[in-house]
């Protein structure tokens, strides 16, 4: 039997995926679909790097990764695509991830975007993608991601992990509110759609109410389970196995050996969801979520939490100062909490200063970069 040159090339192209092609629901046709797919990974932290690693190895043909941070030493405990050289050279995560993934699988095209994913650029980043995977570190951007997924009719795989716990579920937006014709190769009917993030959790928590990986810690193993669950759903979607996707919400605690699956199928019917029933994309339109502004000439950025969320909450400043004590020296009075980070430095090497008010407003001094300030806020206060 003689092979043409192109046939030989194709055989070689698929060879590395042999063990995956053996799976009856994937096969060669499923593998080819994967190679034609484009996945957007928002956030290049622990979840994002584990997802990107798995999808690049699985042969998802195009990966876009958006992240605003650079690699830090404390990332290496769980963020699988980075190494000590990246820390020493202060490489942006999106670039470091792209470089590593190119060495893992040169067949995959990787776009690394060093950017703050926000309402300003969200719609540009989802253009032409087939599935969106959540590798974020804050609630506000997740609600934005949910808005843009519903508007563009794109599958969104939510994932979150902190401490030893994690949660994941798939959003297949109801076509009722689709305003843009996404070109996703994943197709589903209204009957196959699933509730969106806001159907299940109508409001994001107020700033400071929830633990973050930087204040409460995180076990890499908890993140790994969630990232694997997200990837499994994405691969099922992209290979045309819609009937096999998990339609329930997965919640795990790897330390307490607890695993819960919640049937969320009824969440949309009974609730008047602002996002996927009414099409009110408050996060995407910049009406929810916080405002971030540079304070001119002061090398500082002010972050004001958004009007959305539950009733205005007064932050417990003493508790917040205690929570931040491992990261610097912080004191509070009746009006504000103030202090310096020991591990966050400005461009000229001075410690970054944080002033936090009871309504969640913060002034971060030592940067005039909005993304850097949002990153610090998300890490230490939680948004």
């Amino acid at each position, binding site marked *: 039997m003689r092979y043409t040159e192109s046939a030989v090339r194709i055989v070689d192209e698929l060879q590395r995926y042999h063990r995956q092609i053996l799976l009856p629901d994937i096969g060669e046709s499923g593998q080819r679909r994967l190679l034609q797919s484009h996945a957007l990974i928002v956030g290049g932290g622990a979840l994002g790097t584990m997802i990107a690693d798995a999808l690049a190895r699985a042969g998802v043909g195009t990966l876009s990764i958006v992240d605003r941070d650079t690699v830090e030493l404390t990332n290496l405990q769980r963020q699988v695509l980075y190494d000590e050289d990246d820390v020493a050279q202060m490489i942006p995560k999106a670039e470091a991830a792209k470089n590593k993934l190119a060495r893992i699988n040169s067949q995959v095209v990787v776009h690394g975007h060093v950017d703050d994913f926000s309402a300003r650029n969200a719609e540009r980043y989802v253009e032409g993608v087939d599935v969106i995977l959540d590798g974020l570190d804050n609630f506000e951007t997740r609600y934005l991601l949910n808005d843009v997924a519903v508007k563009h009719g794109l599958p969104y795989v939510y994932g*979150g992990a902190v401490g030893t716990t994690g949660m994941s579920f798939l959003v297949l937006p109801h076509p009722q509110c689709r305003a843009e014709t996404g070109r996703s190769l994943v197709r589903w009917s209204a009957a196959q759609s699933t509730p969106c993030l806001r159907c299940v959790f109508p409001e994001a928590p107020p700033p400071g109410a929830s633990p973050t990986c930087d204040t409460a810690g995180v076990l890499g193993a908890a993140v790994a389970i969630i990232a694997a669950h997200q990837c499994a759903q994405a691969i099922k979607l992209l290979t045309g196995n819609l009937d096999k996707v998990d339609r329930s919400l997965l919640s795990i605690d790897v330390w307490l050996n607890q695993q819960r699956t919640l049937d969320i199928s009824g969440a949309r019917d009974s609730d008047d969801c602002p996002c996927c029933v009414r099409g009110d994309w408050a996060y995407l339109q910049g009406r929810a979520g916080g405002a971030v502004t540079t304070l001119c000439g002061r090398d500082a950025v002010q972050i004001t939490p958004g009007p959305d969320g539950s009733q205005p909450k007064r932050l417990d400043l003493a508790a917040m100062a205690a929570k931040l004590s491992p990261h610097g020296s912080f004191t509070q009075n009746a009006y504000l909490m103030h202090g310096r980070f020991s591990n966050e430095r400005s461009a000229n090497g001075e410690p970054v200063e944080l002033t936090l008010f009871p309504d969640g407003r913060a002034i971060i001094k030592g940067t005039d970069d909005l993304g850097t300030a949002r990153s610090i806020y998300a890490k230490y206060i939680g948004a």
Partner: protein
Amino acid sequence: MRITVNGESIGLEDRYTVLDLIERYHLADQPCAVEINRQLVPKAHHREHRLTEGDEVEIVTLVGGG
């Protein structure tokens, strides 16, 4: 009455609502998904939904890190 919350049996006075239960666990400012006897109770109904003897309740809070 006795109910089960995340696998743990607890005793409650009568007329306890889902919202009361959320407050008991200090989760009022967290986004919570509550399932009772394998049926999700939407947030809009947390205030009026009364718990009954033997209910099996699962409460999960939205996880934000990653």
